[in-house]
């Protein structure tokens, strides 16, 4: 079952609120007026009781009945019943009085054959225990009618006001939610070809501005990722084209005429190099694809980063000595992470640094342990990288030197992208800065993910 729309929900909520409020007010008002009527009746009956008692004071006289009639007559809706202490009925001022009346003393309300009475029971003589009982009856049918009418009115008000607020609320909600609909219109227009659409953040109400901002940022990220992805596919094709065409050409040329066995061996060796390069490329791309799908799941093992860095520096030591570059490490720190992945990340950075450090230069690994996280810097002396190129360094297949060199040890330009994926899988960030003859790759890793 589809959920109710937001506007309908708001309208219903408005209606319910109004209904509750008006119902409450109505009930309060009807209670108050009823209490007021009871009070009025009580006053009236009390004063009549005094008159009746006075009239009956001297019961022997015949004109006491006249007095009684005088007392009752101005009030047509008032009747009197006198009951003896033995329960026998002595006197009814009117013939149509109900047979059964409440016996308890004081005020009560009864209904008899469609007529409502307010009944007041009181002894004729306050001080005698076996005094005859006086029962004063006040016909309050018209009061009750009035109250009933008022109740109808209240119910009608409740219903109508609920309906009215539902309609008004629906309208208000719809117009209030207009920016959301605008958002949805823009969102529905977004496709791979139009990722540059953006919401007007300034014209959004404050509650939605933040959401619009996030939405725009999301679009920005999508746009960026999509651009890179499109470039990536094109690059893959391009990267594979060169070795493939080498393979094709070389194999076909070799096969065109009989050759000495050495030539075949040479051809196979050459092909092997191209193939190994391609295999490495494919493996690297699969690794990145895995990272893109969130499938790089780093293990969490306690790592002594100083020890890890030293192991890597030892690994690279022969290479560094070869190119006369000094390797060193300062600082230490501990972190939970995936040893193999982080080694790979760091190894790519060191390999990269050694590649761009001139002879007699220096490559340093710096570890700074902070309470929240850890920063791992690989810096190398050298010419540095111009500022415009820095953000592109982590792009796949990006090479600072665009001319591709021949040879099997040529990098496909995926090393830094892989490093970035590994750092991200650990919840960290990596960036590069270059100044004063030092190029610095800074990895920031959180201690807890």
């Amino acid at each position, binding site marked *: 079952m589809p959920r109710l729309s937001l506007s309908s929900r708001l309208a219903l909520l408005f209606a319910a609120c109004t209904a509750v409020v008006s119902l409450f007010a109505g009930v309060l008002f009807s209670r108050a007026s009823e209490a007021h009527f009871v009070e009025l009746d009580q006053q009236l009956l009390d004063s009549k009781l005094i008159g009746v008692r006075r009239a009956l004071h001297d019961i022997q006289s015949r004109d006491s009945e006249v007095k009684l009639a005088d007392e009752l007559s101005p009030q047509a809706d008032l009747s009197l019943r006198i009951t003896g202490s033995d329960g026998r009925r002595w006197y009814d001022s009117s013939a149509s009085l109900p047979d059964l009346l409440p016996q308890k003393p004081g005020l009560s309300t009864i209904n008899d054959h469609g007529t409502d009475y307010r009944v007041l029971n009181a002894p004729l003589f306050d001080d005698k225990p076996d005094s005859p009982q006086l029962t004063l009856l006040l016909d309050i049918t018209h009061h009750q009618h009035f109250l009933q009418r008022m109740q109808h009115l209240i119910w009608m008000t409740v219903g109508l006001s609920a309906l009215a607020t539902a309609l008004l609320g629906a309208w208000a909600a719809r117009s209030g939610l207009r920016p959301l609909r605008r958002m949805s219109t823009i969102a529905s227009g977004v496709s791979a070809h139009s990722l540059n659409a953006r919401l007007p953040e300034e014209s959004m109400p404050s509650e939605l501005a933040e959401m619009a901002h996030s939405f725009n940022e999301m679009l920005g990220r999508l746009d960026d990722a999509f651009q890179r992805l499109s470039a990536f596919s094109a690059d893959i094709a391009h990267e594979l084209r060169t070795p493939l065409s080498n393979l094709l050409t070389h194999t076909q040329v070799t096969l065109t005429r009989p050759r000495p066995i050495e030539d075949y061996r040479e051809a196979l*060796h050459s092909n*092997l*190099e191209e193939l*190994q390069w391609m*295999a*490495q490329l*494919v*493996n*690297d791309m*699969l690794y990145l694809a*895995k990272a893109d799908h969130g*499938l790089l*799941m780093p293990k969490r093992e306690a790592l002594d980063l100083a020890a890890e860095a030293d*192991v890597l520096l*030892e*690994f*690279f*030591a*022969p*290479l560094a000595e*070869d190119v006369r570059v000094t390797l060193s490490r300062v600082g230490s720190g501990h972190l939970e992470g995936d040893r*193999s992945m982080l*080694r*790979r990340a760091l*190894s*790519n950075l060191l*390999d990269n640094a050694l590649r761009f450090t001139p002879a007699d230069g220096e490559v340093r690994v710096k570890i700074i342990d902070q309470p929240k996280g850890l920063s791992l810097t690989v810096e190398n002396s050298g010419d540095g990288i111009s500022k415009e190129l820095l953000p592109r360094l982590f792009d796949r297949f990006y090479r600072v030197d665009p001319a591709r060199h021949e040879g*099997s*040890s040529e*990098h*496909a330009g995926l*090393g830094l992208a892989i490093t970035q994926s590994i750092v991200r899988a650990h919840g960290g960030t990596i960036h590069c800065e270059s100044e004063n003859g030092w190029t610095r790759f800074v990895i920031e890793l959180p201690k807890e993910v």
Partner: protein
Amino acid sequence: MKLLIVEDQPKTGQYLRQGLSEAGFNTELVADGSTGQQLALSGDYALLILDVMLPGRDGWQILQAVRSAGLDTPVLFLTARDAVEDRVHGLELGADDYLVKPFAFSELLARVRSLLRRGSATPQETSLQLADLRLDLIRRRVERGGQRIDLTAKEFALLEMLLRRQGEVLPKSLIASQVWDMNFDSDTNVIEVAIRRLRLKIDDEFPNKLIHTVRGMGYVLEERPA
């Protein structure tokens, strides 16, 4: 020593069999999972090389059947998929090693040899030797032709590995993993440099060279006729 290869892709299977046979192994190749499982359960094999995706029964099912039959034949998996779950699944079921396509044959061969060696207890050696090259494991000394050679710790480890597996072509990735504990594909030429430096100390002054480069595959330590 008999190996069983269960691989349904004809070219891959054929090349694997040829390569392993030429490396001195008695190899049998089947293309479907059911036959593969029957053969594997016979217990006649020293090693099983299984592709994951197979017609009939897949590699995992074969492995399960083999393990539940109580056989501890080493199993090496070949797969085109490199999903983490695959790897975990395979290892949980009791696979001994795992190679993701595309892989280099030299890598496969080195792993096959490692797996076959794993079971057999090697006698405690105190020294390793090839021709006039001698490596004293206890005093951690290397001599060639009676001449003492100073090696760094890693050079010593590298030479020890080459000596222990003399005659085998060792791919760079295996050397990086065994000597430096770097278990990832790396296109760095550190290993080339390390081998070159070792050669400088071991081979340069001597007429018969012992460390040889097998182009595109790795390095081998062996005595070759001049």
